């Protein structure tokens, strides 16, 4: 199906029955799933799945069920990943990755 055909279709709920096409696609209801792009889906510090809020946030969000949004994942230069909450507490005591013992530095943050 070419681009111009599609554009033509997009204009019209009012295109008449005399269209030369057999079928037209009016709308697509898509469903997708996202997950953190991590190698290991469990946070080695709190041992909770990274898709779930960390233990601490779970404890605090007992009142507020939407607390989850803020508990993101952080990747180190070593490419290991943890809850950001967990890692920020960890580095206060030991500035090394708990999995590979390399010095910890943040490569990127989940958002």
């Amino acid at each position, binding site marked *: 199906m070419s681009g111009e055909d599609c*554009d033509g279709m997009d204009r019209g709920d009012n295109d008449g029955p005399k269209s030369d096409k057999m079928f037209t696609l009016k709308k697509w209801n898509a469903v997708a799933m996202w997950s953190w792009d991590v190698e290991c889906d469990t946070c080695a510090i709190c041992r909770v799945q990274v898709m779930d809020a960390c233990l601490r946030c779970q404890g605090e969000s007992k009142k507020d069920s939407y607390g989850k949004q803020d508990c993101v994942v952080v990747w180190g230069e070593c490419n290991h990943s943890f809850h950001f909450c967990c890692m920020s507490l960890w580095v206060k005591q030991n500035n090394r990755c708990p999995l590979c013992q390399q010095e910890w530095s943040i490569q990127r943050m989940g958002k």
Partner: protein
Amino acid sequence: MMSLKPRHVDFQETWANLKETVAGVVGLKAVDRIVWNTRFSDVYALCVAHPEPLADRLYDETRNFLEEHVASLLERVRGSTTLEQSDHNDGLLDRYVSAWREYSQGVAYLNSLYSYLNLQHVKRQKVSDAEIIYGTSATVSCPEQDARQLEVGELGLDIWERVLVRPLSAALTARIVSALHAARDAPPDPRHADIIRQAIQSTVHVRSFRVRSPLALYEQLVLEPFLQAAGEQHARTAAHLLQEGDVAHYMKHVLAGLEREVSLAQRYLPASSREAVRACYERAAVAAHLPALHADVDRLLAEASADDDDAPQRREDLSRMYQLVRPLGPAALRPLVDAALAHAQAHGHALLSSALQHHKDEVHIHFVEAILTLHGKYSKLFNEVFGGAQAFMGALDKACSAVVNSRSGEEACRAPELVARYCDWVLRRRPAAAPLTDVDDKLTAAIVVFKYIDDKDIFQKHYARALARRLIHQLSYSMEQEESMINRLKAACGYEFTNKLHRMFTDVAVSADLNAKFQQYLRDNDLTLNTGFFIQVLQAGAWPLGGPTAPLAPPAALERPAGLFEQFYRSAFSGRRLAWLHHLCTGELRVRYTPRVYHLTASTPQCALLLSLERRDATTLSEARAAAVLPEDSWERHVRPLLDIGLLLPGADPDELLLNLSFSCKRSKLRLCASPGHGAAASPPDPPQHRDDDRKMYLQAAIVRIMKQRKVLRHTELIQEVVQQARGSFAPSVAIIKKCIEALIDKQYLERAPGALDTYSYLA
């Protein structure tokens, strides 16, 4: 003018004068103010007399005088009465009370005339009350027997008891008891009532100054004889009532009798005696006949919960029984509670078995309504009849729980699935022509039943699956209702129970915003799509969406929107992976080659299959599979619906599919996707093995959470905390918790603390 200086005093002369006044005071004769003052000084003078104080002599003479005086009163009271009889109207009580009024008042005046003696002479000898009570002066003879240590007013009362009451005690008791007995049936006139009250009151007042057992005389003279006689009387009445009629008749009269007895005590006896009077009645009329009462409980319960005209009457009977039996304590009440439980439970099972006979499409409605009927009916009954007492409400809970969680044979309990389906039925969008009324009430009802479910974790799975379908396919009646139901579940079971449900709900809310941002992104970048587009982006881990699906190639028409959206998503977020769930996507197609336009809602594979027929009239299954248009197991889900409505026709070769060029259908809107709503809530329950694995995972997570926080914990405490945490979902056995602890020790999350076998410590 009186002199305060100690001087020589002639005792005989002073006492002679004083005695005359004392006689006047005690006899309530008028005493001139001047004379009173002079005598007051005389008392003082005698107490401080020189060289020897004369207080002891004065005290002795006064006592002698009072003893003589009371002896003469005794004669006056006795009169010509025959003491041995007990007619309370023979005048003895009248005379006793009139003498008592005069004397008790006179003695009170006398006490103030002797103020100085009381203050200076008696006080010194008086042993402190504390010493009497706590016995530090135990070696001293009991002070109350040594009359010298009484004030003059107290001395007067003591003499009254010794000289007048003792000889008359039997006669007084007989008359008071018989007067009370008569007053029970017919209240006497006010004057007589007053005499009875004052006679009783005098036995209290005479010893009111005593520290030790001030009520002993009252109890001995009035209360005990009264209770003795009353107990016998009540027993006779009770036996008579039981012979006369049935238990209902009996209870009605006994309850009235109890009220009468309590009111009798209120009118004539000190407040402290009321309980004893009530207990005496209850012993004779209720406790003694408890088996007869208990024997009727089952029948009364059955008739009280029936729907006929006699039921209100029986409820009153039952309520009377409760009022009568309750004061006797939990043991006496037990048979009522047990019967209530058994009765509600039996009724519940009957309701349940008829509910379960309904067709599978509506059995969930009948199930919830049956439990609700049970709960409503008996909470109303128990509130009305038993005042909503905790014991009975507890029995109702037990009955409901037994009915809800009952299972037939080896079959799993159906409640978790049925209640979840009920919720789905209530929360689902429905045609405007057939709206559901009282949605709120129905959700409240669902919670009532839900609370009784033991396996709440299984309910949660069913609920989550149904919620996922409603949200993804936009089948919800209203998002407010969805949220309010999740909040109700959270209120009942806590955050953890609804955590994933909340996250699903949140994803849907966030998706609305995401679509708006995507459209803005398209406008900002001058991009257009070739179709309408709406997307829901779900977070992994929160949705119960089954196993992984084979990768599918979306139809070419969808490549552009999918690509643009991925581009937008990468720019808006970071660190995220996005996967298309083609088996959940739907497309809206128009069929244009027919005389009439048809609107189809179809799954992505269906769309792909139909769009591949754009330029030709036939295709084959193997071809479609090879192009990854159709997933392997797609016949039932995707192809069959197209054949069923006749849009495709089977070819001569079983592999071949032909487009029906002369397609027609009555409806113009057709939904082809393996219909997400229908029967989907009835998807087969997890096999028990699967369920056990889930519970082990849950328990292990709970143990890790607890140990992470506590670091070191004893075995029993850990078990307790785990049970506590799991309670909202299911009731774990200790054995399974132990297995989970072992597993965590193997995985080196925990270790046994060195040197303490029953203690675990957390390994960070």
